[in-house]
Structures are given as structure tokens and as C-alpha cells.
């Protein structure tokens, strides 16, 4: 019976330095492979996260900011960018085209702090002559905030304006005189201001002028 002599992977004749170099190469390859896998995993995560963020929250590519008010520039239009289209189709919002109305969302006050139901706010708006508008408050998921007063929004028709046509709306848990919108227990808040263009339309200059005079949102205090 013939005997087969198996040669060991590392023969005793291999010098210790070569063995060490081989081990280092194997270890180095493993590290490189792991780095590559980690890089790809991180890139996939960042790619998905950045896409979702830009779709849900917007970015300068698709939105304009006017103080605290965010405006999706091409919402409802055929020419809308993919982020805007994805925003509309995934959030379930029914938005009038930006060619026919200005729809503005605020998640922060004018100082940049998150709107929250534990705080009281004052929203001061200028006279929007001849334009129909509404200001509604929602929780962060777009749900109306239940309240005994059945108040969820004010419009150009239902607001009690100041003598000069400007208006003040207060947001807070406790009832207040005037145009008060209850927000108790909602957590983070989202204000939505809708301003319809007149039937004759608005020029881009008129639209820019309108956007300059959007309401300011002041925090009064938190509890």
C-alpha cells in the first residue's frame, strides 16, 4: 500500500519571518474586506436615510424657507422634482398646486425652536388683501388636535381681524380671548398656512411680495 505524504501548509522549513508576513497579509486582506463591507453598509444607510429625509422634510433643492415657513416650490406641478413628487405621494397630502396657491408649513417658531404643545405662541399676520387664506394647526403626523371648543383653524372668513386687517392667533393649552387655537396634549405641532391665489392668478413678483409678509410666530412661554 502506497503511502501518500501530505506536505504541511507551512513546512517546518519556512522561516518564521515568511510565516509572519503571510499571516499579516491574510489579516490585512480581512481588514480590507471588512472595511469595504462596512463602507458599503454605511453608504447604503446614508443613501436611504438622506433620500427619506429629503422627501419627508425637504431640502433647498425642493423647498423655500420664509422665516419658519417652508414652501414646497413645485408641489402639484408636472415639472416637480422627484423629491416633491415623492413627498406628495408618500405623505397622502392633498395639496393645491403651487401655481394656484401658496401652502406653507411651520414646524418651528420664528426663533427656530420646535413648536410644541407645552408652549404658548402668538402668530401675527399682515392684512392679506383680497386673498382667501386659512391657518390650521396639526400634530406632527398631520392629525387634528381634539378639543372641546372644536377649533382647529381660522380662515379669512372666520378670523376676528384687527381694525387694519392684520390678525393675531394664539396657540396654547388654556382658553384665551380672541383667536385662540387649542393645542393641549398634541406634542410637536405643525402650522399650515394656505393662501389661495386670486382667480386671475399672481405674477411671480406678486407671489414674492406675498411670501415676504408671512405671519411671524412668537413663543410666549412654556410650562
Amino acid at each position, binding site marked *: 500500500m502506497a503511502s501518500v505524504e501530505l506536505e504541511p501548509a507551512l513546512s517546518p522549513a519556512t522561516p518564521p519571518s515568511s510565516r509572519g508576513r503571510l499571516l499579516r497579509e491574510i489579516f490585512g486582506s480581512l481588514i480590507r474586506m471588512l472595511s469595504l463591507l462596512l463602507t458599503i453598509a454605511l453608504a447604503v444607510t*446614508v443613501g436611504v436615510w438622506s433620500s427619506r429625509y429629503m422627501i419627508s422634510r425637504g431640502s433647498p433643492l425642493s423647498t423655500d424657507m420664509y422665516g419658519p415657513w417652508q414652501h414646497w416650490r413645485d408641489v402639484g406641478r408636472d415639472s416637480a422634482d422627484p423629491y416633491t413628487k415623492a413627498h406628495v*405621494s*408618500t405623505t397622502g397630502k392633498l395639496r393645491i398646486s403651487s401655481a394656484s396657491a401658496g401652502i406653507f408649513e411651520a414646524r418651528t417658531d420664528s426663533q427656530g425652536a420646535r413648536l410644541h404643545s407645552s408652549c404658548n405662541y402668538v402668530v401675527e399676520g399682515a392684512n392679506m388683501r*383680497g386673498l382667501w387664506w386659512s391657518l390650521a394647526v*396639526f400634530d406632527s403626523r398631520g*392629525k387634528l388636535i381634539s378639543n372641546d371648543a372644536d377649533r382647529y383653524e381660522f380662515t379669512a*372668513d372666520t378670523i376676528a381681524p384687527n381694525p387694519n386687517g392684520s390678525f393675531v392667533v394664539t396657540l396654547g393649552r388654556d382658553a384665551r380671548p380672541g383667536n385662540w387655537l387649542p393645542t393641549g396634549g398634541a406634542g410637536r405641532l405643525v402650522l399650515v398656512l394656505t393662501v*389661495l391665489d386670486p382667480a386671475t392668478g399672481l405674477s411671480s413678483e406678486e407671489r414674492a411680495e406675498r411670501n415676504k409678509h408671512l405671519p411671524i410666530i412668537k413663543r410666549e412661554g412654556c410650562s
Partner: protein
Amino acid sequence: MKLLQRFDFRLLAIFLLVAGIVHIGATFLTVNDTRASAYARLAHSLPQNTMVITDPIAPNHQPLPFLAPDARFAFCLFDTTDTPIRVRALLPDLGWTIGIYAPDGQNLYFAAASAERETTIDLSIVPADDRFLGLPQAVALPGSTLPPIDHQNSIAAQKGLVVVRAPDKGEPYRGDEKAVLAKASCGSGS
């Protein structure tokens, strides 16, 4: 400097390339995913080619997120596969609007009333492919006794949503608003 020398720029290039490809892919996948769109959400509860006045929007009845009770709504889920759809609505005052939306939320048509005079809307929605068939100005509906539809007042769309919006002016006006809203119609033979 030593740190820069040891930094593997190939990994940075791979990171940027993969992140960019995934970002673009994820965005376009989401664009085409209309399962959560307003149309898809309303499709469960609305009949086709019929104008339906919804109950007033309230916390316990809010069919869509960020839909405010600043208006009373009438919806019509249309499908022009079998027949063109004729839409009629009266927009009597400032704040009244009518919009036609594609399933992905694109505004195909929009009209708002002016404060000076009431606006009557009478338009037809024809199958999207008809637009490319070189139809004449007026399209006679097959087997219909209706006058031909003026093609200039027609919109090409296969499916979508008609939304008539009556602004809420407060309790005293709600009856009148609902009565005007009830005149809005949407259907093949209406």
C-alpha cells in the same frame, strides 16, 4: 499628514458612489410608490364616477393627513377607461375651488372662484390616450344624446380625483354651502 497618507481614498470614492446610487434609486422608487397617496387612501371609501360630499372634517373624521376643516369637501374618484367623465360645479364665492388630481397627486386642473362673480365649471375628462389620436375639437360620446364635449374644456386623464372645496364661513352659512356643493356632479351621463 500621516493620517491622510494612511486614509484610503478608494473607500471614500466607493462610499460616495454607492450612497449616491442608493439615494437616487430610493428616491425614484418612492416616487413610483403611490400606495400612501391621497388618491389611494380615498379609493377605499369612495364610489367611482360619483360626486360624494364628505362629512365635515373633524379629529374623528379626517380622511387625509393635514386636511383641515377650513372647508367642506366633495370628492369624485373618476376612471375614464369606459367612458369620458363630465364634471360640473358652481364656485359662488372667494375660497371655493375645484381641483383635478392624478393618482400621484399632480394637479391636472385647478380653478378658484373670484370675489366679484360666481364661476361655473363644466368640463370633461377623457382617457389620456385620446389626446394623441388627433381628435377633432368636439368629441361626440358614443351612444350619448349629450351635446359634443368641447375639447378645449377637456382634460386627459385615466384615473384621478376631483375635489370641490367649499370654504367654511361658520355655522350660519353651512346649510347654503352644502346646498351649492350638492349641485356639483361627476359622471358619464350627468
